[in-house]
């Protein structure tokens, strides 16, 4: 895999001023045009065989998530069991990509998932607000990695970003990336949450995407799911354009994860259409596209049952998690 050279990409030493210049030289985003494109792609009609394919792909791209203050070992265990056998009546149902939990639940999740291929992702760095000292954030990360987390979902400091302290955000991501390293030299996969709902403008979201990619993110993720505006189709479309263009420039492929608010199969399929038509087939794999979701799985399972049996089963025929 090619190694990224941030200075070569920015074209100068990495200082706040140079980062600022580089980020502000990116082409702007026209809100009306972007949203119109997302709306147009939403009208694609995905039926029969392509729908079946898309539903299975959506499940295999899911980061099945529980991020509640009320989470317990039992709750996490039950979610893991659901991930292992999403539909006990149909064992051909694929498994989701990962379970996403708070750091202290990682060991329970690892235990429940055993040797399965399902990854354990932990949110870290004082999720969801990110308001803690760097030392605390790094410790939070290391703690999760030591507990066996395969993936780390970090949050950026939106306050720093919005006040133009790009270097601070850059350094934070780099430091967390370092904290993801394991003793054997491998590293936990790093997803960088931009919290797009708080960045508000599409120009900001494009800049934050580039900043995260420059600092070494493996994935860029829209949201924590904890603010009022979470993943939207236009935001995800914009981030897919960013990773596509980044790949053109660097040959490094970064993943995208919309999270929060994606609840129905219909929504999930719209996202997959956007992935296909904006970034291309190369991104249509759990390695490069994930859904951060909790209730989505059951809706997809019901749709899947409908496709195979011809009728809806109803909520009582999929397990609560």
């Amino acid at each position, binding site marked *: 895999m090619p190694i990224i050279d941030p200075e070569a990409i920015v074209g100068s030493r990495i200082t706040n001023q140079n980062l600022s210049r580089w980020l502000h030289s990116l082409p702007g985003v026209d809100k009306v045009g972007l949203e119109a494109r997302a709306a147009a792609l939403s009208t694609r009609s*995905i039926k029969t065989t392509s729908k079946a394919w898309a539903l299975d792909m959506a499940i295999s791209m899911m980061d099945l998530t529980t991020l509640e203050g009320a989470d317990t070992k039992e709750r996490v265990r039950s979610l893991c069991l659901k991930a292992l056998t999403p539909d006990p009546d149909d064992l051909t149902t694929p498994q989701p990509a990962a379970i996403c939990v708070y750091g202290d639940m990682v060991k329970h999740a690892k235990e429940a998932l055993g040797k399965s291929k399902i990854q354990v992702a932990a949110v870290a760095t004082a999720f969801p607000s990110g308001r803690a000292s760097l030392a605390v954030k790094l410790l939070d990360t290391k703690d999760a990695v030591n507990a066996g987390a395969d993936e780390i979902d970090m949050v950026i400091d939106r306050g720093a970003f919005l006040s133009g302290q790009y270097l601070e955000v850059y350094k934070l991501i780099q430091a967390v990336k370092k904290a993801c390293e394991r003793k054997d030299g491998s590293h936990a996969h790093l997803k960088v949450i931009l919290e797009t709902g708080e960045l508000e403008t599409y120009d900001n979201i494009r800049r934050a995407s580039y900043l995260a990619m420059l600092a070494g993110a493996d994935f860029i993720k829209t949201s924590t799911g904890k603010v009022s505006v979470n993943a939207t189709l236009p935001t995800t479309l914009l981030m897919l354009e960013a990773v596509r263009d980044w790949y053109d420039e660097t040959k490094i492929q970064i993943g995208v994860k919309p999270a929060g608010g994606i609840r129905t199969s219909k929504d999930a399929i719209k996202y997959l259409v956007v992935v296909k038509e904006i970034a291309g087939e190369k991104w249509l794999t759990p390695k490069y596209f994930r859904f951060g979701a909790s209730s989505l799985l059951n809706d997809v399972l019901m749709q899947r049952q409908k496709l195979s049996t011809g009728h809806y089963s109803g909520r009582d025929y999929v397990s609560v998690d």
Partner: protein
Amino acid sequence: MFEYAPAPESKDLVKFQDSYGHFIGGKFTKPSATYQTINPATEQDLAGISHGTAKDVDAAVKAARNAYEKTWSKLDGATRGKYLYRIARIIQERARELAVAETLNNGKPIKETRDVDIPLVASWFFYYAGWADKLDYAGLGPNPAAHGVAAQIVPWNFPLMMLAWKIAPALAAGNTVILKPAETTPLTALLFAEICQQAELPDGVVNIVTGFGDTGAMLVDHKDVNKVAFTGSTDVGRLIAKQIAGTNKKATLELGGKAANIVFEDAALDQAVEGIVNGIFFNQGHVCCAGSRLLVQESVQDVLLKKLKRRMETIRLGDPMDKNTDIGAINSKAQLNKIEKLVKQGVKEGGERWAPNCPMPKNGFWFAPTLITGVSPANTVAREEIFGPVLSVMTFRTPAEAVAKANNSPYGLSAGIWTEKGSRILKLADQLNAGVVWANTYNQFDPASPFGGFKESGYGREGGRHGLLSYLKGAN
């Protein structure tokens, strides 16, 4: 691989008769001298259409005159508005049927007829229905008068939409009409005749006479016609202008175009690419205001063309009835031949042709979305209206050069500007000789907004209050 399975709209939503007569005085005449109208995507016959004769034209004009004198001019505005609202609502109720009919007869994708054409048709009638009882406020003083009988000739690219653009303001202003649809796309106009019956519109207020150019010429020529409205090619527009010179007939002509879509280096490039695609590939490029000349600033030419080509690779060409089709069929063999001839000429004159690798259906008339790069302002494809999915790419260095190149055309219908700089938009909009200037968007239509051209793109405006004035005395 994520392949989209076929998602065809049902053909059964519309049932055509075997053959149609003209719609004169509220009734269909017996079909006579029929020719077949086809589905350009399959070349299959759809229905027999009557080729209008001088007798048919005369009967239609008489019916319109009669209706004007005896009924329509005697009704108050609110009552005329009531009929127009009724028509608008029936169009909405029958929207799916009309969308399918339009797609079958025209070849344009169902996505467009469903989401653009038919909703705009309904909105045009709703909009002008609202004007019918407010003509005193149109700026012409109290009680402005209708012209009387209007002859209206519409093209094949937006058959029902062009009908709506013509009939809605004419009726709101108190005129009665004879409309001749294009010879290749008469079916939605004939369905519209049924809608007039369904709405119990007084007989003769709307008359539809089908046929070819000769039928249209007879209609324009008829001595009892007061107003002529035409949308179509500049050549035919010229003929009409000559034909009615020295008469009392008023005319609005909406003719060809060769619009420049100007992309500056500071544009939102991804959205500009969308705008370029929408500008030239919407409706297979069969759009008089299509952004057929791309003027791109040299400094962003490479990145923009790379993005544009990648975007064009994702365009889905094929069965217009499939809900996922982006580009449908070319409307006729004649049009396809014209596009092919012009593109060949452009390549001969030094242009470089590029098209994505897209499979073409066996039957029907098809043309892949095409770029021609390295086009000089003298190249045929930079000057002549191709009326197909073909984009000529030129470059510029400064805003002044962009304006000079954009205005270097006998046409002046529309233009597009792509820049994040608001002040530049305002300045350029002033300098461009185009009736419509879109900024950071393209091909947006709204009944409240006037539409029309400069120079050889015609005269008069359609849409908005201006469109109404074309149908009232003292305004032209």
